[in-house]
């Protein structure tokens, strides 16, 4: 890093650093949705008051369990996704998708395993999804997952992004801003 040419330049640099601290990189609490067979479940992830959340990315993982057609009553993993999800921004009741979205399309797009066809699994790898949206303070993210398998499946969601301060912080000694 080159030296500063003046006190003013250094002060400007400090000012920029302080501004960057107002954008705190963060992970929201992971959200796990356990969905019974042929059913759907809805979970809500709350956004704190005093801070908006600028989502940047989303990582998802999910199970691909099904009742073994060769041996009914036994659960197997055939690698075929049967989960779909809808997201809603609670702060303004905004649906973020036009309808249910298959989880393998969001979490691991590419080659999938065909339902009902035997063979080796396609070894899907999960990749982060670009998810550029600001969720309002005091709002929440509603996640509705539907499961068309005949056994229970689980999906997990983790948003990463940064918090945007929207409320004054009170100083520790009480001589603060509020």
């Amino acid at each position, binding site marked *: 890093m080159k030296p500063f040419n003046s006190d003013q330049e250094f002060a400007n640099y400090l000012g920029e650093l*302080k501004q960057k601290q107002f954008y705190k990189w963060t992970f929201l609490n992971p959200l796990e949705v356990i969905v019974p067979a042929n059913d759907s479940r809805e979970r809500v992830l709350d956004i*704190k008051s005093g801070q908006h959340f600028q989502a940047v990315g989303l990582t998802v993982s999910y199970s691909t369990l099904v009742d073994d057609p060769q041996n009914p009553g036994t659960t197997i993993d055939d690698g075929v996704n049967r989960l779909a999800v809808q997201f809603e921004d609670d702060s303004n009741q905004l649906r973020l998708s036009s*309808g249910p*979205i298959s989880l393998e399309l969001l979490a691991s797009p590419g080659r999938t395993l*065909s339902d009902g066809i035997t063979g080796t699994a396609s070894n899907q790898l999960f990749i982060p999804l*670009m998810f550029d949206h*600001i969720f309002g303070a005091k709002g929440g993210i509603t996640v509705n997952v539907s499961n068309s398998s005949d056994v229970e499946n689980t999906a997990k969601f983790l948003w990463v992004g940064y918090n945007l301060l929207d409320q*004054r912080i009170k100083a520790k000694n009480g001589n603060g801003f509020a």
Partner: protein
Amino acid sequence: MDLPNGKGQFANIEQTAEQQDKMISLHRSMYERSLLNPFQILAPPNLDTQPNFPNRIVLTQSPQQVYIEVPRKALYFLFKQILISWPKNLAGGLPGPQLEITIDGLDKKHQNSSINVQNFTSPGTQPDPSTASASNYFGAYKWNTLFPNMGVFKLTIFGFDGTNPAHVDIAIIGRAMVDRKLVKGF
């Protein structure tokens, strides 16, 4: 829940009341602007024939057109990324159907020629068609294009080897540019 005194993410920042006010104002305007261009995932309608796979399109041996509706209240749609999944052809581990996709947003094709989806959605190593080795690749392709809202995106999909069941799942990720007056109830 209010931010507690001396704790929380921002509490280790030393700043004046004026700096806090400035940043709060900036963050609020960022949020309000975001209401005018919400993130959206668009997918083909949930076809009754494929209730377990809401975004699935079964391919035919002739070109097939699929319509993805753009939110009515959006003036524009910024098409940022297309997600595509296609089946593993289990006969010898072949990579799957050779798909060609064109997208019309303005009644003009935004590709001069159809593109083999395998080429643009899975950069990197490809599986050898002559072997059964599995390969992992991803169908997420950036496609930064701004479309005026013409109601729908029309996708023309072609590619079916005629011998194996073939389908493709598609979703579009982008941002809808909404008229300010229509923000509520979008």
